């Protein structure tokens, strides 16, 4: 469902992504790992055009999304995104955080959206937080709610940009648990993370990026047990 052809991204003279080609099938859970500055977040952000590619093509469901005159807003409704720093809206209650986009975009009435928000909050065990403001919540709770906020749009793909990197260690588990459940439900997921355990357990395919290239990709077992690229071997020896 996602096709990336010769993708390149430069910031000024600095090349962050070099000629990336990638294909992601519906239902896949693609995990991207790599050192900081390797371009993995930029790659993810190109997929929903938070970063505009400087060259190459990105196709989603047979539509080139980085062509001129594409309705970017429509496209993004199909692609949920979860950020490292949650980015909940601090001036709105949890429920309004979740219902804002579906209601503003005319996809649901406020009542429908409220009902759906409560269902989603039940699912992550936080129905009692519906009327609280984000500042009252722990990091783990914020991130679970950020996931649910994206899910409220009924996206076809979920993009995760280091969703657990800003969390205290004891809160990482609860966020990964929600993501695992989402994976079990069949969601197509692209996850940039440093959680190797998650990559191994949930990923259907793991990519290793360094210096703007995808250097190796494989099934999790092969990837972690039998790495071939020397840079990947080096990287794994440091993080595992």
């Amino acid at each position, binding site marked *: 469902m996602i096709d990336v052809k010769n993708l390149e991204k430069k910031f000024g003279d600095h090349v962050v992504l070099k000629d990336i080609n990638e294909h992601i099938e519906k239902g896949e859970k693609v995990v991207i790992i790599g050192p900081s500055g390797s371009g993995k977040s930029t790659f993810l952000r190109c997929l*929903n055009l*938070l970063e505009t590619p400087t060259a190459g093509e990105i196709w989603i469901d047979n539509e080139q999304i980085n062509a001129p005159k594409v309705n970017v*807003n*429509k496209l*993004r*409704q199909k*692609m*949920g*995104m979860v*950020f490292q*720093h949650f*980015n*909940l*809206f*601090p*001036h*709105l*209650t949890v429920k309004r955080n979740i219902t*804002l*986009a579906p209601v*503003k*975009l005319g996809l649901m009435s406020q009542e429908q959206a409220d009902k759906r928000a409560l269902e989603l909050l039940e699912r992550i065990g936080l129905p009692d937080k519906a009327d609280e*403001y*984000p*500042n*009252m919540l722990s990091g783990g709770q914020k991130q679970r709610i*950020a996931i649910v*906020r*994206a899910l409220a*749009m009924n996206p076809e793909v979920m993009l995760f940009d280091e969703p657990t990197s800003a969390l205290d260690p004891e809160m990482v588990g609860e966020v990964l648990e929600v993501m695992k459940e989402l994976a079990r439900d069949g969601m197509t997921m692209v996850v940039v993370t440093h959680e190797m355990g998650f990559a191994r357990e949930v990923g259907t395919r793991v990519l290793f990026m360094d210096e703007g290239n995808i250097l190796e990709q494989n099934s999790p077992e092969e990837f972690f047990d039998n790495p071939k690229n020397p840079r990947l071997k080096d990287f794994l020896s440091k993080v595992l």
Partner: protein
Amino acid sequence: MGFIDSFVDKFQTTFIVNDRWLLFLDGFKVTIIMAVFATLLGVIIGTIVAIAKVYSFQTGKLKILDKILSVYLTVFRGTPIVVQLMIWYFIILTSVDNGVLVAIIAFGINSGAYVAEIVRAGILAIDKGQTEAGRSLGLSSGQTMKSIILPQAFKNILPALGNELIALLKETSVVGYVAVVDLTKVGDLVRSRTMDAVFPLLAVALVYLLLVIGLTAIQKRIERRLRQGDRR
């Protein structure tokens, strides 16, 4: 004649004789009307200018508009409001014989320049992640600005905005230069007619002070309401 008698006497000549308190009331109304409508105009202009400038800064589009707006900010912040007021009244809007209307336009456009910079600072202070979160959900840049960025920006700039509105209220006191009889002008007129400066001028000063105290109280209340999400 004792002090008390003289006090009562002067109070009477300032406010009671010839129903002069009615003059004060009329002047008060003019001051309020000018302040309210100029504030509205200023906030509207300022917000639009700020959004346009931020949009231009972030996307690199509308470069020419951005330049024009910069000239607007420079000119209107760089010249005295009394001079601007007289230019509007005696040069540009000579065909408009409603001085209050001219004053509202002059003060509103002037205030807009200050408000624009306040609002722009407020928008730029909001974390980029907020915009990204809004856009990633499929909201347009306009919807994101309106529902996510501006409410947070206004909460943060409320004290600065309050300052500007207080300054504007007091600035309207120069409107006597273009023959509008506001509160200050009434005080001055009564002073010259009664030959007593103390009562009319202190009365006028007291009214401004009470207005500003009232405005500050309102601002505090709004701030408390908007800060709901900050409580822990």
